[in-house]
């Protein structure tokens, strides 16, 4: 469904991605793990064309999207819940969700909204609250819900568990699992919480300083001694 091949991305003179190859199949959950600064978020943003890849190709559903303007990707079926959540703090929960649907035809709006509320009932309780005043977990739900409002076929999630209490983390991962299973939505997820991410994923990639160093099924990576030593020590 998505093929990233030989992608290089730069921030000024700094090379953040040094030739990344990744393949995501229809209906999969794929997790990308790696340390801070490895380039995971950069990869997600590069898929969306901001920043743009300086070399390499990104193919989505057979179409080369490497040079498409960012705002057109959502119409192709790619939505992202980005690093830092980036909800609109001075808008209400409803307005944030409306923003998620801004590129979609209006007639499906009510149905999509109900689906998001079924997945995250908390958002319904807070529908008119200013998003910036909500807790971190609620903001994360909103960020994912907003991405779902465009009915994407590929959902990109950047650190959905960051900074959240263990119970909320569990809820979020359960929601991701439901989205994938019940709606056949493909999920590409970046996570530092390697244990949860790999346990949930069909396949995974490990990224170190701008390069993919390992790949395999979630279970393979979980039992790999190198992965265990680098990302799972301390027991999550």
């Amino acid at each position, binding site marked *: 469904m998505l093929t990233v091949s030989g992608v290089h991305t730069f921030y000024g003179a700094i090379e953040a991605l040094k030739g990344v190859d990744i393949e995501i199949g229809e209906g999969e959950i794929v997790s990308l793990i790696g340390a801070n600064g490895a380039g995971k978020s950069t990869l997600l943003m590069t898929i969306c064309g*901001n920043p743009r890849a300086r070399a390499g190709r990104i193919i989505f559903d057979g179409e080369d999207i490497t040079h498409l303007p960012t705002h057109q990707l959502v*119409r192709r079926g790619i939505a*992202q819940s*980005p690093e830092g959540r*980036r909800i*609109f703090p001075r*808008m209400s929960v409803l307005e944030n969700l409306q923003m998620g649907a*801004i*590129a979609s035809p209006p007639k499906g709006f009510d149905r999509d909204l109900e689906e998001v509320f079924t997945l995250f009932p908390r958002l319904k309780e807070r529908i008119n609250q200013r998003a910036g005043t909500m807790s971190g977990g609620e903001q994360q739900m909103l960020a994912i819900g907003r991405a779902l409002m*465009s009915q994407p076929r590929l959902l990109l999630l950047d650190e959905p568990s960051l900074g959240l209490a263990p119970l909320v983390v569990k809820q979020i991962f359960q929601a991701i699992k439901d989205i994938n299973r019940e709606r056949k939505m493909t999920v590409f997820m970046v996570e530092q919480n390697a244990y949860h991410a790999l346990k949930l994923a069909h396949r995974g990639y490990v990224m170190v300083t701008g390069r993919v160093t390992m790949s395999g099924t979630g279970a393979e990576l979980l039992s790999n001694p190198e992965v265990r030593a680098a990302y799972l020590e301390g027991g999550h």
Partner: protein
Amino acid sequence: MEYFLQQLINGLSLGAIYGLIAIGYTMVYGIIGMINFAHGEIYMIGAFVAMITYLAVGALGITWVPLALLLMLAASMMFTSVYGWTVERIAYRPLRSSPRLAPLISAIGMSIFLQNYVQLVQGARSKPLQPILPGNLTLLDGAVSVSYVRLATIVITLLLMYGFTMLISRTALGRAQRACEQDKTMAGLLGVNVDRVISLTFVLGAALAAVAGMMVMLIYGVIDFYIGFLAGVKAFTAAVLGGIGSLPGAMLGGVVIGLIEAFWAGYIGSEWKDVATFTILVLVLIFRPTGLLGRPEIEKV
């Protein structure tokens, strides 16, 4: 008491004009964080287009005043929007990723260019025009007289501001505009064409400034290529006083500046009214840089 009422109405109509211009400053600042110093010139061009349209309409033999006014309004809003759009396109967009100083200097250059351009094509002399909307409404047995033009200015401004507030707070377009103001990267990820929203912001600001330009021409009956400077700086003061980036702030700031000017001119002397305005600008910048309705930069992350 009558004198007070008279100044109050003068101040409100003047404030309405400053408010209309201030919206353009505050919206552009809100979305791209720059002060569009060419905005005063856009207002001046709005006044000129209104005047030219009036003369053209007269030459065509249209004498029914409401129709003439409507045509003037439409023409000045339309042409001025094109100017606003073009200015952003050629002077600011290429500098989008430059240091903040670059678009600022570009804006000042644009302002000088537009002034000289109008001076060149329209001449440097003031353009007088006979009153189009003569007549006064007298109140309190003739003690207070309000010209219809000032009354119309206040009414039109109220309607425009109401419509504009609805546009920003209720429509998908307004939501996209506010989203870009808060996080352009995220808005782009959601499918908003950020460049187009920025263009639209300039167009809307210019259209409102055009209305202000037209009303000023109707009130004072004389315009020249230089009126944009002082009005621009005062509207900017209004935007800062209200809290730059805040839409209701710009409206409130405009009214406050208009009232201060009118009362200062009425009770103290009109020579010093500009000093009063700019003293306020200095005081606000020193003691309350976020303005009356501006929000302090604190957000829960």
